[in-house]
């Protein structure tokens, strides 16, 4: 990556001028360039060599299913496939409807783009994920995942078109509201569909990391909003409770909370109620992230101009309606990037559940497979950890870029 940029600038003299300006401005600059350039080159060459030549990736190939979905029964994998396809349709529908609304309000960023521009925009934003999925598909030796990927793309595109049409149609208010409710119910329905096949206690692998992060962020939402409202309220007792909760949870390490959930939860709830390790992990994630989300939402509430509340008051709205209809929606909208940031850190922190609770998540699975017969004692941990790190990196990096994009779009901080 260090060598390619100058040549993209075209002719020799321009490249020379570019290099002169960006690489060799002063003798110190030149020294830095040579030193760090050499360093970067060494790293890149070593890394490429590792990926394409010396890396022994057989262990990943053999254990791909274990890493991704843990010990999910092989003949029940179709359930996941169905869920993914439905999810694709759902995402497509939402994207279509949102886009339709944006066109009506003339706030769409992509409406003016041609088809090819749109595709390249999508590739730029989500190309990494597409690429990773493609890589994983290549590693599988069955046709099932390919079928699933194909069906998901078809469902997604179909949903996108359908959603676009639906958003243009004039429908009665009650119908729109009902449809919205049904859309909101889809993820929950999918969740029960999946737990109906394999109980939550047996969710493992990367699948556990993804689902528990999503579950945690969804479940902590009501908690976080309530805590934020309580902290801002003039009711002293509520405020005190909320502050105590937030400060206590934010002062405690997630790892220690998870360890406690592992060894001491049974003392506090009856044995018949003691949940499985997966549920414990999700509950701790919820409790933990709730405190952080509360602080984020509080920041959002503070960012809403006072005039908004006063205007709502002058319209004769009740205090609940002022908050629920006017202030809170704006506050939540303003802090979407921060919420995505919280999702990213929760996504990364789900690995702690493997260490603290002994759940076979992606990272624990990656460590466990290096102890398998035939792979033991060969130092394959480097290969498996690079693979694990790559999967997490792709997810976090894409989300963080999307959150930056949203931040620019929402104009947070520029107002």
């Amino acid at each position, binding site marked *: 990556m260090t060598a390619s940029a100058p040549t993209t600038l075209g002719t020799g003299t321009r490249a020379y001028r570019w290099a002169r300006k960006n690489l060799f401005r002063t003798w110190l600059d030149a020294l830095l360039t040579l030193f760090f350039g050499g360093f970067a080159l060494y790293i890149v060459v070593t890394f490429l060599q590792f990926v394409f030549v010396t890396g022994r990736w057989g262990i990943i190939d053999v254990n791909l299913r274990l890493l991704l979905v843990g*010990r999910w029964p092989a003949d029940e994998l179709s359930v996941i496939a169905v869920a993914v396809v439905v999810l694709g349709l759902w995402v497509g529908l939402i994207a279509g409807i949102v886009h339709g609304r944006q066109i009506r309000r003339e706030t769409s960023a992509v409406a003016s783009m041609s088809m090819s521009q749109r595709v390249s925009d999508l590739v730029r934003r989500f190309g990494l994920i597409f690429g990773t999925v493609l890589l994983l598909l290549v590693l599988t030796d069955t046709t099932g995942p390919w079928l699933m990927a194909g069906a998901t793309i078809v469902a997604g595109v179909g949903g996108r078109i359908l959603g676009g049409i639906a958003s243009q149609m004039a429908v009665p208010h009650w119908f729109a509201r009902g449809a919205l409710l049904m859309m909101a119910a889809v993820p929950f329905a999918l969740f029960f569909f999946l737990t109906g096949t394999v109980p939550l206690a047996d969710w493992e692998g990367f699948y556990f990391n993804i689902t528990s992060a999503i579950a945690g962020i969804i479940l902590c939402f009501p908690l976080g909003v309530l805590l934020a409202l309580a902290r801002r309220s003039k009711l*002293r*007792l509520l405020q*005190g409770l909320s502050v105590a909760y937030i400060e206590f949870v934010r002062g405690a390490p997630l790892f220690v909370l998870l360890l406690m959930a*592992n*060894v*001491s*939860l*049974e*003392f506090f709830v*009856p*044995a*018949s109620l*003691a949940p499985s390790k997966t549920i414990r992990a999700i509950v701790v994630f919820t409790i933990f992230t709730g405190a952080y989300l509360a602080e984020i939402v509080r920041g959002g509430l503070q960012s809403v101009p006072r005039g908004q509340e006063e205007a709502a008051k002058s319209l004769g709205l009740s205090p609940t309606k002022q908050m629920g209809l006017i202030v809170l929606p704006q506050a939540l909208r303003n802090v979407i990037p921060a919420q995505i940031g919280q999702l990213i850190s929760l996504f990364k922190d789900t690995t702690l559940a493997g260490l603290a609770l*002994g759940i076979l998540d992606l990272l624990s699975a990656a*460590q*466990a497979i290096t*102890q398998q017969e035939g792979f*033991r*004692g*060969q130092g394959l*941990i480097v290969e498996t950890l690079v693979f694990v790190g790559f999967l997490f990196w792709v997810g976090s990096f894409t989300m963080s870029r999307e959150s930056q994009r949203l931040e620019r779009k929402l104009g947070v901080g520029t107002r």
Partner: protein
Amino acid sequence: MKKIKLLAVFAVMALVFAACTDDGDAADTTAANGEEPATTQAEGGDGAAGGALLAEVQERGTLNCGTRDAFPGFAVLDANGEHVGFDSDFCRAIAAAVLGDAEAVEHVDLETADRFTALQSGQIDVLVRNTTWTAGRDGVEGATFLQVNYYDGQGMMVNTGDFSSVTEMDGVVICSAGGTTTEGDAAAEAARLGLDWEIRSFPDTDLLQEAFQAGQCDGWTSDTSQLTGLRSVYPDGPEALTILPEVFSKQPLAPAVLDGDTAWAQAVNWAIIATIQAEEFGITSENVDDFLDTDDVNIRRFLGLDFEGDEGDTTTFDPGLGLPLDFAYQVVSQVGNYGEIFEEHLAPLGLERGLNALWTDGGLMYAMPYR
């Protein structure tokens, strides 16, 4: 001013609640706490130690047995995800005795650090996870240890050729699993021999093995049976490691149940003893059915068959343990006798019967009389 008001409110609240709980405990008078005692009693039945665990397990139909999943010889997961090993078989033996079905076991995988809390909290009914019987565990941990199913001793494993005796090991790093008795015993042994050992403990065996293989430790100390099991699956081959001849502490491994439920403890105890008794009688899972028409009164009594009583009438023997009459038959026919279990899981690792032979063969395995 506002702060004072707030404080006052808290104080009042605290008083009110303190008063409520006092009342609630005596007799549920207040509305706020009216539900408390009721739920308390409801949970008393299925709580950690209601005193009737035997009935509860029989009603539930499965036994929750605390064990582990990656311990060669004692409990490992096979390719089908089944628990296989010496300890796993004792879980099965208990299930066979109590429920009549050796497969009615929920094997709960536990770490070293959480095994006792799992027992204390009622997550498991019995702990069979090569756990050393010590006074402190009997006392502070609230556990009751039962019939020892493996007499073990602590040993030291080194890279072959490095050392030939523990006394040679001066100025070395010794690794052990954290949160176990072996750690403290190793320190005591070093002090006794006047050796300078740095003892480094690891949270799990996989990590310990990685560290040992990389050369972070000179010695690996643990129960000899564990070391033998781990040596058998060592990446560089078993011959790369040597277990030194010294055995430097007693490690009797025994199943444990929670304090305070004698009936349950006795039921589990006799399930273990039945495996030893069966070996004494020479009854195996293969030939147990041949004994159904034996004339030996002791065996007939043991297997729950009818025999001729003192007054010449036909009778059966029920010791009143709360176990089915034929529990010993179920244990032996579905799981096997002690020798069979040992031969199947531990002999392949190269472990000798040694202390664990029957008392008639010079060992310590001695069944209490079933009368």
